[in-house]
């Protein structure tokens, strides 16, 4: 069973629907105990970092996530969830969970024609053969909607990058934690492959 963390961060049902379609069991839950006892955790999200952190702390989900990470439960962060696992976000200048050391700066393109948010389909370039990226081909595109991007301090935590004037980390990970800046649940067959890969990943890196 995969626990999808409910912290009022919009559109949790789309992750659930994608897992249902793949025949993978999941449950949307705000309950820290249920999250800590589940086999796998998805930490999704659309919204604002500072307000999300408030809800997370209020519900005790920060501790649930930290403990689950420490004991090796496979965790998948998505979009805002990916930003919040870092130490800090510039969105609302807020301290975050710090599961991976890093920050979350805002896009500041020099080309005035580049639109922010970075929204739409874009390619990623793999830097690692992480199991979550199995069968993801070089031309595959994923759906992004974001104005801030994850920037881990340790370059080895960057599993894939994406180009939008600058090259920014689009998949990050460390130990049993992996996270995508794009929305796999909205990225067609390529995105579904990532969800499927996650559902069979044991949290170790070969």
């Amino acid at each position, binding site marked *: 069973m995969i626990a999808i963390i409910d912290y009022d961060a*919009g*559109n949790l*049902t*789309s992750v659930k*629907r*994608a897992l*249902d*379609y793949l025949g993978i069991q999941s449950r949307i839950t705000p309950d820290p105990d249920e999250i800590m006892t589940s086999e796998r955790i998805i930490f999704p999200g*659309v*919204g*604002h970092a500072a307000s999300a952190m408030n809800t997370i702390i209020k519900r005790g989900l920060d501790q649930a996530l930290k403990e689950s990470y420490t004991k090796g439960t496979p965790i998948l962060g998505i979009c805002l969830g990916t930003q919040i696992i870092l130490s800090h976000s510039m969105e609302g200048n807020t301290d975050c969970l710090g599961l991976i050391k890093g920050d979350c700066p805002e896009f500041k393109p020099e080309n005035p024609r580049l*639109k*922010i*948010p*970075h*929204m*739409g*389909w*874009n*390619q990623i370039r793999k830097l690692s053969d992480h199991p979550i990226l199995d069968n993801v081909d070089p*031309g595959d*595109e994923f*759906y992004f*909607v974001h104005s801030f991007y994850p920037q881990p301090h340790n370059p080895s935590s960057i599993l894939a990058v994406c*180009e*939008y004037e600058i090259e920014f980390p689009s998949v990050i990970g460390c130990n049993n934690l992996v996270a995508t800046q794009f929305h796999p*649940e*909205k*990225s*067609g*067959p390529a*995105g*579904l492959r990532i969800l499927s890969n996650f559902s069979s990943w044991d949290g170790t890196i070969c």
Partner: protein
Amino acid sequence: MLSKRIISCLDVRDGNLAKSVKFVDTKDIGDPVSTAAKYYENGIDELVLYDITASSDNRNIMLDVVNKVASRIFIPFSVGGGLRTVQDCTNVLLAGAEKVNVNTAAVANPNLISDTAKVFGAQAVVLSMDVLEVEISQKIPSGYEVVTHGGRIHTGIDALWWAKKGQELGAGELVINSIDADGTKEGYEIRLTRKIADSVSIPVIASGGGGKPSHLHDVLTEGGADAALIASILHYNEYTIKEIKDYLSSRGIKVRKT
């Protein structure tokens, strides 16, 4: 680099698929859920479901369609038509849509844009505008006027002004639908699309008039659009999504492979 998006619009009336030509004489041509699933499988980048149901009694049929579509396709999709209040928008977002498409109601009540964006974020709010070319006047300096009710009602609002205002109010994207071009299959309104794309910093989706792949090429280059809406050329199997994307790709436009 971002790909240009190819978006298909499905007009839905009483739960059935319809395609309007100049917004009159609509005829039903199929089931929206299976059509949405087919387009998804064939590589469409995004979908719009537009509710053209006349009677508000049948709104729940639309929510049911939205819910079914959301369980079958795993790409972004928006829902529009008849959304008058934040509650209407909330209902379709909870039913599984990523975005709402507001049009007539936003003209009457611009706060609908800002209020919805405050709750769900700008990325969830698409301002769709129906535009008619008119004589340039003091009131309409761009020569393009926002109209409603399929072009029957003139609002006296300049389309260029409204596009900028929509962005300011918190819309995350604009759909520019040319009533002059809609259903003609003779090409998008390039000049209108370009004027608006040059004046806003949010993505612009061109709509109305797409009849063949070269029309999409033109509006995505000369027209400055970030995405193009297509309807009848897919609904009547005149071109496949792959044919359209292969054509655009061969002419140097980056599109997501099918």
